[in-house]
């Protein structure tokens, strides 16, 4: 698990570079929240297996940089407590804890969770929002700092964002929505080290790309192109780090294909026809709920089940 933490380091660094100290603070708060709960209610010493840390960091990566720290902390706690420990701790949970934590935050504090800070310009050291709002108190957002996410812009204001900004991640969005290229790199490494099943990210990204291409061909005005779709929002992070959570993804390879493709389809549906600008989180959670089913449906065919054709 700590290997995974290590591969997250460059992404964290990039996020800090783009969004300034706020990003670091938010991720830190989320991780602390996760670790505290894990330590309080988890099995003795289970903090050391590193999974709680991963959950926390990944949660942090999915939050807006300007989020008050206490919210991030609450999110981390919820993710571990209700997302994981309730099910019996490591390896037993159904839903991806980090995303469950995010879903909780988004439903609890929709406003704070949909006010997106602009990337840090020359004022790098400046906080990207009211990070330091008192616990339980609402943030006071300096309006100048906020903007809309590329997806929001496209969906609700029909204004596209230059692709290059997306690829290098210099556009407003959640902490982790930085450089897709970098995330892909780390993902490739993890896949090589067999920490994740490459079929899932490939399934997700390919599906999204194909569907987006199709729609774009139909009506370039209404539907964004495949590359924009791929590199905008949390898709990269989700496909590489969240959908691939070993625990909450299918165990069979065929299952992983189905899982990945399903996520891809849902992402496109929610992004294009849904009420929300971004659908990765919900897509993954919904597919998580289906995993028991998928596993059951894709049992391997045991050796010798085929009646031997041999007749000497």
């Amino acid at each position: 698990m700590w290997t995974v933490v290590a591969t997250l380091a460059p992404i964290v660094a990039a996020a800090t570079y783009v969004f300034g100290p706020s990003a670091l603070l938010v991720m830190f708060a989320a991780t602390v929240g996760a670790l505290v709960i894990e330590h309080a209610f988890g099995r003795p010493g289970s903090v050391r297996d590193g999974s709680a840390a991963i959950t926390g960091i990944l949660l942090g990566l999915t939050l807006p940089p300007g989020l008050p720290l206490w919210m991030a902390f609450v999110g981390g706690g919820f993710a571990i407590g209700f997302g994981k420990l309730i099910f019996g701790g490591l390896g037993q949970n159904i839903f991806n804890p980090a995303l469950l934590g995010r879903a909780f935050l988004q439903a609890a504090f929709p406003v704070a969770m949909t006010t997106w800070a602009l990337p840090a310009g020359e004022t790098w050291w400046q906080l990207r929002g009211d990070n330091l709002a008192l616990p339980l108190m609402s943030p006071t957002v300096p309006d100048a700092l906020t903007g809309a996410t590329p997806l929001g812009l496209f969906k609700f204001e029909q204004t596209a964002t230059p692709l290059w900004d997306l690829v290098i991640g210099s556009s407003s969005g959640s902490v982790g929505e930085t450089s897709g290229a970098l995330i892909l790199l780390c993902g490739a490494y993890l896949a090589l080290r067999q920490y994740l099943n490459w079929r899932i990210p490939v399934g997700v990204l390919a599906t999204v790309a194909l569907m987006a291409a199709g729609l774009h061909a139909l009506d370039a005005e209404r539907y964004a192109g495949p590359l924009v779709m791929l590199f905008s929002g949390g898709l990269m992070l989700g496909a590489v780090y969240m959908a691939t959570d070993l625990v909450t993804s299918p165990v069979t390879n065929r299952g992983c294909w189905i899982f990945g493709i399903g996520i891809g389809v849902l992402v496109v549906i929610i992004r294009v026809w849904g009420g929300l600008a971004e659908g990765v989180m919900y897509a993954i959670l919904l597919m998580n709920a289906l995993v028991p089913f998928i596993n059951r449906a894709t049992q391997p065919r045991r050796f010798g089940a085929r009646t031997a054709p041999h007749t000497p």
Partner: protein
Amino acid sequence: MVAPLTFRHGVHPPDLKALTATVPIRRMPFPEEVVLPLRQHAGKPAQAIVRPGDRVERGDKVGTADGWMSSPVHASATGTVKDIGLWPHPDGMYAEAIRIAVEPFSPQAPRPRLVPDWRGLTPQQIVQAVQDAGVVGLGGAAFPTHVKLSPPKEQPIDVLVVNGCECEPYLTTDHRSMAEYPERVHLGIRIMMRCLGVARAMIGVEKNKPDAIAALQATLPDDLDVSVHPVTVKYPQGAEKMLIAALLGREVPSGKLPLHVGVVVQNAAAVATIGEVFETGLPLVERIVTISGRGVRRPANLIVPVGTKLRDVLAACGGLTDDAREIVFGGPMMGAAQASLDAPILKGTTGVVVLTAADCKPPQSYPCIRCGRCLDSCPVFLNPQLLSSLALAGRYDEMAVHDLADCMLCGCCAYVCPSNLPLPQLFQLAKTALRRRKAVA
């Protein structure tokens, strides 16, 4: 059809065979006492035909086969029967065993020709001779060879497969026997082909034994269709179903035996033994055993009288090192851990591996994280992840539904499991539990 020369899934554990791969086979001195359990083979135990106080000579029959699915036991040393009673068995329980006090200064010369010369015997007579010689499989289950040699009529056999893979780490028994006694292997093959009336024999040897392959190639008989096949080095290549898949591309139906696809599989050492038995006329009273592992001072390939106590065998190899931790009969993947140094070497004991603390997996293990790697390693394509969680919940009947019976306890899943779960142990206990239930019902 084109043979793939390997099978799907499986794992690549480091084969730590270097310790003994080049060590020539040597004979160990006779111990003061040998213990001959009557249950050394699959099937019914033999029945003692000697009494305490009797004097027996090396090769004499001391226990007779109890019916067809059984095999006799022969004295592996000249001496007097001390006692017949319960004695620690390598399986951890106690079992009826004949204890023989070995005569200190006996030449241990066997009586001449206890086994008839095979030439001029009919196949049936040869099979009978094989049973009387107490020959059983030396590759694992110690299955009585004569049973294999007389397949039911309705099941025509067309190939004899000699299993020289020896995929377990450390072990070099088959390797050395093939390298040093290729003629015996070929003689054994000749005899078995005669009995089975098959025209074709294939020897499967993993590529990591070039000298054995060379030796066998060099001595190939020109009047028989025998071929040597270097197969991929992968565990469990030696599992007969996997080997058959590799050599012939045939898939043994689950729950069925090799003979259902017209094949008989016999382990290389066992074949060599058959050759030896008919050559020397001495029944199966000793076998080649690899004593290896970092926990033993002088690893070796020994010719060990059947029934020699573990303690004596180890002594013959300079004893244990200080950090020796765990003693295993068979290989580290499938072998059975030993609790008592009094347990005797059996006919089916392929090797003795002494693991140091560094070698054996740490006991600490984590909950399953559903990574699914076990599914990708299981050569019989089961779902160890599901099976293990069912086992931990004690729901054995559902495990049976999920083909627990097909699990051959090869240990691939445990080998890859990042959570270090003792999966085969779980499956083993589930199997025993189910068997008990059936017995009760």
